[in-house]
């Protein structure tokens, strides 16, 4: 695994604009950054990333049935009582799922370590699945990368195939929804809707804020027609807390991702995985932190059960070094995870996002930050297999 500087494609910004990638630059700072790429060997990809991704996914899926059947574990994960039966029912009835991303710390040598699962509302999808692929194809075509350069990336292909497979389980109309004023999230749902269209499904879009609630308890679109399936790039726990959340269990709507993702997209899954698979080479020791009021011991990281984009993380590295990130999730219960810093490559700390689509390990995307905590300031840097 190496970080290799490379010439940018002179026309990439025009391509991005033309292809719907409007968030490639944020407030003048690059988000898509192709001034360098990460090079892996095929062995690193297959042995250290692909195989562990599938294994971790299966370990996590293996826990869902046990968690949703246990009031105690649902309570531990902070899942509100009102939603527990609904979540358990969705799991028992095989409510379909589409995709997830796990974040792995990997340095090219030691086993990759699982930081967390983003299994409810994973983003950085379009850039990993499509724009990264286009970068490789064009760099090969232009003779900048060798003919036999490759990339670990079947993400889009598997998305289209998975959507086609689960289509019979999705009542119509099928809506794709995100927060109105987030161009990045709107870009991601536009991309997913495109994948669904490629799978032969008619799709519609609605802003999260525009969803209505009918007198018959169903969610409605702007024409007051009931929504059959709602793909929502909006966290389940936000829905639980919002005014319309209460209606979820009786709204007769199929959600993507499904309700049971609430137990996987929750950092409480990390101590549970560690309990069941203590010592697994791809897991970091993790525990529920029942006393977040106490100072964090050295060598540990504290994360809220539910937080996103690196918010509210508290780190106590060895040798008295401490730092934390601010955020809006300050009041939530926490877990502790053993401190395992990201490796530094040149000027960046890369975090590997490993995609699981329809239960298949499908590809990776790397985000690189200037600090050890990968925040929304991180840059997306493409990769190649050489």
């Amino acid at each position, binding site marked *: 695994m190496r970080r290799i500087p490379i010439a940018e494609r002179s026309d990439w910004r025009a391509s991005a604009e033309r292809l*719907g990638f409007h968030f490639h630059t944020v407030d003048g700072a690059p988000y898509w950054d192709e001034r360098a790429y990460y090079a892996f060997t095929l062995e690193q990809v297959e042995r250290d990333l692909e195989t562990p991704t599938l294994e971790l996914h299966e370990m996590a899926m293996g826990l869902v049935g046990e968690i949703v059947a246990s009031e105690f574990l649902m309570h531990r994960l902070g899942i509100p009582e009102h939603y527990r039966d609904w979540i358990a029912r969705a799991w028992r009835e095989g409510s379909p799922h589409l995709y997830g991303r796990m974040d792995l710390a990997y340095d090219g040598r030691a086993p990759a370590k699982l930081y967390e699962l983003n299994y409810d509302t994973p983003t950085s999808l379009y850039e990993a699945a499509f724009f990264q692929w286009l970068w490789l194809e064009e760099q090969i075509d232009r003779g900048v990368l060798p003919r036999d350069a490759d990339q670990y990336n079947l993400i*889009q292909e598997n998305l289209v195939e998975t959507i086609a497979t689960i289509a019979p389980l999705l009542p119509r109309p099928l809506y794709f929804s995100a927060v109105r004023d987030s161009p990045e999230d709107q870009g991601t749902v536009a991309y997913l809707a495109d994948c669904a269209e490629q799978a032969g499904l008619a799709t*519609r879009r*609605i802003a999260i804020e525009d969803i209505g609630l009918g007198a018959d308890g169903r969610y409605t679109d702007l024409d007051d027609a009931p929504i059959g399936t709602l793909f929502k790039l909006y966290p389940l726990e936000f829905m639980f807390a919002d005014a319309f959340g209460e209606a979820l269990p009786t709204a007769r709507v199929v959600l993507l991702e499904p309700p049971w993702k609430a137990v996987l997209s929750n950092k409480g899954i990390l101590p549970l995985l560690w309990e069941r698979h203590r010592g697994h080479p791809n897991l970091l020791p993790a525990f529920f932190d029942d006393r977040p009021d106490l100072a964090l011991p050295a060598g540990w990281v504290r994360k809220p059960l539910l937080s996103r984009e690196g918010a509210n993380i508290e780190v106590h590295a060895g040798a008295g070094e401490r730092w934390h990130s601010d955020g809006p999730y300050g009041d939530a219960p926490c877990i502790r995870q053993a401190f395992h810093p990201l490796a530094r490559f040149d000027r960046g700390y890369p975090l590997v996002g490993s995609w699981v689509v329809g239960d298949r390990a499908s590809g990776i995307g790397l985000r690189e930050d200037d600090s050890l905590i990968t925040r929304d300031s991180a840059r997306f840097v493409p990769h190649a297999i050489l």
Partner: protein
Amino acid sequence: MKRSRRLALIAIGQMPVLLAGCAEEEKLRQGFYTSIEACRSDGNSAEVCDKALKAAADAHANASPKYASREQCVQDYGDLCTERAQGGGVWMPLMAGFMLSQMLGANRSPAYVDANPVYRDRAGRYNERFCDRGDVGCGSSSGGASYGGWRQRPVDIAPNRAITTTRAGFGRSSSERSGWGRSFGG
């Protein structure tokens, strides 16, 4: 090879993707109501609801399915059968509700189109009785399921359907956290 051989985008990139609800074409809005109250609480004016009920009741009186015996009616409509008030010996189902059709335009209030009676059959399914000769109109009916241009079709919307009473019930959690990050995913 660890990557796809070819990928495409079919919708994005070629034209701006519009959010649902932006289109301003005319739309037929249909509502199935089991009472005047349900009609009104769906946002229709009292005048429109009264007009719809009267039109549906008139069509019912003229053109409901009719049977020579109670048994025959029960076969189709279970215990929702009644004997005609004027001129006994004729049996018909009770009207279970009415279907109101209105045309919605971009910048005007909904325009009344018509209203038809709805019956609930023995299996619990709702059927709308409608005139299939819109240009010349239909006569009165003395026959069964279809006669004189009157036909029936299943009602595919729930009674007193999807009355959107409120919106903006989702989104508060994200607005409270706006300023933290660009995405509400992660």
